């Protein structure tokens, strides 16, 4: 899976959680919680959806690494890369 694939997946998941959002306008370095008005339940649903789509375990202590779109792609790229 490429970085672009991961970015697409993240955007698809965000689209299900915040269907009203204009995802194309969200800058890569913007806070997702702020830009998309995500609360803690939304964020948990986001993490669960990533887990189900990509089979990655994301511990709570890593949540800050998923704060932005760019951060999500970086984190998932490392998590999905063969060790």
């Amino acid at each position, binding site marked *: 899976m490429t970085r672009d694939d991961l970015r697409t997946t993240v955007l698809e998941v965000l*689209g299900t959680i*915040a*269907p*009203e*959002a*204009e995802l194309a*306008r969200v800058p890569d370095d913007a806070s997702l919680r*702020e*830009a*998309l*008005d995500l*609360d*803690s*339940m939304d964020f*948990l*649903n986001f*993490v*669960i959806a990533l*887990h189900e789509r990509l089979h990655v*375990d*994301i*511990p*709570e202590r890593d949540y800050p690494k998923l704060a932005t779109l760019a951060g999500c792609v970086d984190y998932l790229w490392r998590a999905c890369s063969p060790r």
Partner: protein
Amino acid sequence: MPILGADMEAGTLVAWRVAPGDRVERGAIVAEVETEKGIIEIEVFTAGTIERLLVEPGAKVPVGTPLATIRDEQPAMREAPGVAPPSPAPPIPRLDGATAPSRGRVSPAARRRAHDLGIDVPALAGTGPSGAVTLDDVERAAAAPAPAPSEAAAMSPMRRAIAAAMGRSKREIPHFYLDTTISLRTALGWLERANASCSVTDRVLPGVLLVKAVALALRAFPELNARWSDRGPLPLPAINVGVAISLRDGGLVAPAIQETDRLPLPDLMRRFRDLVARARSGGLRSSELSESTITVTSLGEQGVERVTGVIFPPQVAIVGFGRIVERPWVAGGAVVPTPVVTVTLAADHRVTDGHRAARFLVAVEQLLQKPEDL
């Protein structure tokens, strides 16, 4: 037509989900009703067979009007109350909201821009996903010539609902307020360890601990888990906490979690997650909107540290939690950075006094120091 709100007088039958001859179980959803507070799924409170449908879709009828007849297991046919609660339900926590609950029909960027420009978002036609109002819609509206000012801003049905319920609350209920700040060091440490040892799908949010602590504390303070009536306070047997859920488009709904005090934390979390999903996508049930016995609200996600609520009539108390913040805290003679939360109780002075109310908050605090018992 069940009563689904403190000030509800009538409702419009939108659709039937059953037909004559259908067999229904207690709790089955048989119809959708539109009130000024949204589209609500109507459940039956008895099992039986649908005999006749008495109201056509599209008809607006007063509260109490029989909607259908249900033939139950008994030989005698039961008239009407098949689709209405057998006793007047305590009305409702839903204060505001859309005609159909939804996560939001306006993108956050568009909402912020509309706020900056002073544009009324609900008046705009959305061209985004699912009809959401987009930034472009707001910019187009800003560029359009302003309509002639009317004498007064028109109120949407939901604003009327919030105005009626909250106006009534402030007119009739002598509120008093108490607050305290609680250390969550122990509770959050415990929760972090618990969440680390389970699947992501089973993680519990801190807010669920707060709701459970309130529910358990109420067992010793039944006067706060009550409904105000013409004859005075009526303590309620079950503790059904209504949890305030924001709908993002300006609305708010507070569906009940039945028997909150009896639910283990993982079950409570599942119920809470389900309620949030259905509140934002539609699909709340009539019982969930009529059975709250107290409300818990949290605006912590908005960054505020204290929430002083307005009681939803006919309830007699509301508990507000602010944001969990790290503050200097004295523990064991040392100042240590500690996560804390401020909890505020707004209570009806007709049913309780400051002394008892203060003890209730102390009980909530003590429960949160033993999270393993929640």
